[in-house]
């Protein structure tokens, strides 16, 4: 995309976001498809995509989107239902638009697709559905538009006068504003809108065009459009305002019509004058409850924008204007690197100030330390993204894969707002895909098997995330058949991974599934069975300095828990010294520090007794072949890692330190036992230990020596 214009790049990025929104909106549709808000979301997404494509002259995409939009408009108006066919076709259209977001080139026309969408046009006894004419024009008709914004802080996000201006551009508009509900200045929240408008619009642009003016209202029910017929008839004028009439002349209220609608914005006092009868908005029940008014359900006096639903949706939070800024990820990475350098420079300054002992210098140094700390936290915060951005793409995966395998599975996502470093999120996608595919293919049973076991036919996979301390826990839980420990054990013995008489614990058996090429599947399918996935999962998570654990109960499903650090850029570490070298041990691994006197281990050599438990330890001096003899009093840092509990014997525990992680560079590459390096305050380098691999290496060396 480097050769493309900024506008084109922006369009493609925006299109990708809109397609993701369309995907999410489609997946949010309930099974019966009756809820109005998800339908509105789909419609809005289609409309926005159409608008974006239109701006870039992608005529074929616009034509197909328009057809699809019309079909969903029928759903929106309650003229037809959300059918599986409509959803599938919309997904198909979304997929066909995908390449467009990559290349910016218009899509190929698919006649079959167009015909299939056209067949979904609303039919039956409902209001007449007229496909829009190519130029959008039709016969001149009169429409009554009643517009009463009810969302709190309406003026912060909307400008009603702009909507009125748009209406005027459609034809001849007679606008009447009702100011009777405006409270006195004492009770006014200037952001709330208490004005109401009645517009009599004569236009040849059609009902859709009139409705489209109000497409982006937070409360779609705040506007009502009625077709009054041809201008010559004029039998159905704009409803007279109640205030213009004596109470006994007020138009008869339809059964169930709510006189308190639309609700005044929260916190405003309602005037006692009779308001205009109006159709229901989603916020109406709430307002009724608040006012103690227990009138009957609002009637449908016109053509509501929302399709009827069984239960009113919860009131939605008014959308706040977007304050986000799109920044190139490389610039962000560069900023983080610079902040890392600044942290190191600040540490040097602190050290110099401490050495010189000058009060003024110390004061400045402390101030800079505070500011750098804030800058570091804020900069790292910029890189944090909600993990829900990754979750959303899995919903489509579960939908498609379960359909392919003839299973019925719901994906439940929890904790999508949990934030993780951008780099972690980017690398997390593939492992999660593997785990989900496994859960769908091996975990959740087919419907008939589930029914026979007394389970509901629909299986569930729960994908959840939560943060605790400096780590994020991601859990994939299914309610399927669980891991078969006997089969795994048999397979391990068959492949000589374990001796035939081995009796490992369940946890040890579960860990076997991470072995390269290990699979208990009878046959290899297009989804899984080759035994590659879990190995890849383990490696990927490990490269993110994370860990994976499995828990399972037969017949009740399996749970895979991934533990990840919040960020890959800076870690909390424990600085230790061996001879003249300094090392950093990630603080998350450290359990405690104990002293080791020379000769205390006696003949046992490499283990200490710690409260009744034998804990092996490795001596950094020996591991890294440092010269000199160990001091009489060593320190052992007891760590807990994926292979168990191991002590690290060092000369001195210097203290806790935040370490800006630097990789070792391609010349040094992958050094066993070292995961990176950091620069200390005095400018010296400290190596960051990869404890698990360090211990593994020592074990391997020891074993080879014994052999």
């Amino acid at each position, binding site marked *: 995309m480097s050769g493309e214009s900024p506008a084109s790049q922006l369009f493609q990025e925006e299109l990708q976001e809109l397609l993701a929104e369309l995907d999410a909106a489609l997946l949010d549709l309930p099974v019966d498809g009756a809820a109005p808000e998800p339908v509105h979301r789909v419609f809005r997404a289609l409309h926005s995509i159409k608008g974006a494509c239109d701006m870039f002259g992608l005529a074929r995409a616009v034509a197909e989107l328009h057809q699809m939009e019309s079909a969903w408009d029928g759903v929106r108006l309650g003229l037809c239902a959300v059918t599986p066919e409509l959803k599938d076709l919309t997904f198909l259209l979304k997929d066909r638009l995908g390449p467009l977001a990559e290349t910016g080139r218009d899509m190929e026309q698919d006649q079959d697709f167009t015909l299939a969408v056209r067949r979904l046009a609303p039919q039956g006894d409902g209001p007449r559905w007229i496909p829009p004419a190519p130029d959008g024009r039709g016969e001149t008709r009169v429409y009554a538009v009643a517009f009463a914004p009810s969302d709190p802080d309406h003026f912060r996000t909307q400008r009603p006068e702009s909507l009125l201006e748009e209406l005027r551009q459609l034809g001849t508009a007679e606008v009447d504003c009702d100011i009777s509900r405006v409270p006195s200045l004492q009770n006014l929240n200037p952001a709330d809108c208490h004005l109401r408008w*009645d517009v009599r619009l004569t236009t040849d642009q059609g009902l859709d065009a009139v409705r489209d003016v109000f497409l982006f209202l937070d409360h779609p029910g705040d506007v009502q459009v009625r077709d009054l017929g041809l201008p010559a008839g004029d039998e159905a004028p704009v409803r007279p305002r109640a*205030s213009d009439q004596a109470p006994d002349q007020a138009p008869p209220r339809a059964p169930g019509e709510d006189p308190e609608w639309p609700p005044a914005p929260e916190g405003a006092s309602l005037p006692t004058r009779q308001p205009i009868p109006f159709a229901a908005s989603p916020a109406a029940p709430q307002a009724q409850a608040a006012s103690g008014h227990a009138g009957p359900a609002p009637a449908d006096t016109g053509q509501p924008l929302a399709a009827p639903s069984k239960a009113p949706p919860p009131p939605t939070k008014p959308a706040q204007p977007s304050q986000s800024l799109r920044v190139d990820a490389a610039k962000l990475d560069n900023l983080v690197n610079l902040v890392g350098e600044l942290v190191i420079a600040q540490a040097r300054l602190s050290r110099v100030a401490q050495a010189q002992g000058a009060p003024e210098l110390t004061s400045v140094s402390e101030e800079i330390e505070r500011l750098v700390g804030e800058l570091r936290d804020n900069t790292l915060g910029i890189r944090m993204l909600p993990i829900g951005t990754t979750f959303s793409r899995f919903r489509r995966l579960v939908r498609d894969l379960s359909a392919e395998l003839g299973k019925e599975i719901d994906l439940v996502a929890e904790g999508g707002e949990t934030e993780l470093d951008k780099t972690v999120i980017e690398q997390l996608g593939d492992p999660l895909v593997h785990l989900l595919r496994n859960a769908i293919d091996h975990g959740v049973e087919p419907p008939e098997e589930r029914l026979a076991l007394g389970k509901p036919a629909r299986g569930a996979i729960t994908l959840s995330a939560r943060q605790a301390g400096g780590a994020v826990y991601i859990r994939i839980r299914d309610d399927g058949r669980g891991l078969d420990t006997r089969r795994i054990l048999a397979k391990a013995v068959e492949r000589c991974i374990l001796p035939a008489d081995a009796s490992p614990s369940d946890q040890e058996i579960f860990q076997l599934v991470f072995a390269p090429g290990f699979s208990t599947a009878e046959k290899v399918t297009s989804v899984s069975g080759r035994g590659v996935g879990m190995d890849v999962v383990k490696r990927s998570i490990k490269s993110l300095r994370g860990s994976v654990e499995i828990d399972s109960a037969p017949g009740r499903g399996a749970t895979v828990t991934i533990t990840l650090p919040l960020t890959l850029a800076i870690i909390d570490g424990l600085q230790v010294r061996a001879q003249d070298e300094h090392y950093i041990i990630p603080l998350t691994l450290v359990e405690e520090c104990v002293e080791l006197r020379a000769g205390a281990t006696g003949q046992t050599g490499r283990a200490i007794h710690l409260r009744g438990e034998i804990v092996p330890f490795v001596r950094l001096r020996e591991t890294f072949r440092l010269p000199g003899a160990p001091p009489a009093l060593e320190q052992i840092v007891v760590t807990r890692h994926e292979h168990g509990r191991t002590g690290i014997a060092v000369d001195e525990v210097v203290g806790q330190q935040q370490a800006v992680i630097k990789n070792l560079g391609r010349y040094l590459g992958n050094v066993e036992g070292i995961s990176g390096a950091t620069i200390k305050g005095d400018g010296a380098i400290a190596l960051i230990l990869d404890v698990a691999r360090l211990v593994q290496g020592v074990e391997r060396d020891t074993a080879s020596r014994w052999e």
Partner: protein
Amino acid sequence: MPKDGSISPQRNDPRQGPCCVDTLPDLAPAAQDVAVPPDDRAPGARTVRMHGLDGPDQMVPLRLSVLAALQQPGGLDLELDCGEGLEAAAAQFICATHKAAAALGRSVRFRGLDTPQAHASLALMGLRAAPDCALAPCPLWPQENIP
């Protein structure tokens, strides 16, 4: 002109910092009297410049200032900058101010609503609703428009 919703102490002197209200002994003939007889306002009439009607955020502090000014005895002049027309939020603010003044028995007049831009905005928003306003003459319904 200050756009921060502040109340300036001197007319046409944007260098003055935010302050309270000043006294305007001379009233322009284009200004429109509302609710209370004009002689109630002289000689202690105050002027509040409502240049912060560009958005709700600016109207919040302005609302407090106007309410404070309404608590003072005497009349009140509200000077509006309608050179670029009027938004619905601003029209609502004016209406609410008018209602508050009437409730407190204060005289208030709005200056600046007689510009062509203001007329165009009011017409666009359908604010031809003077008969609807119980506190006629409505400030959003300029006198010269009454047929």
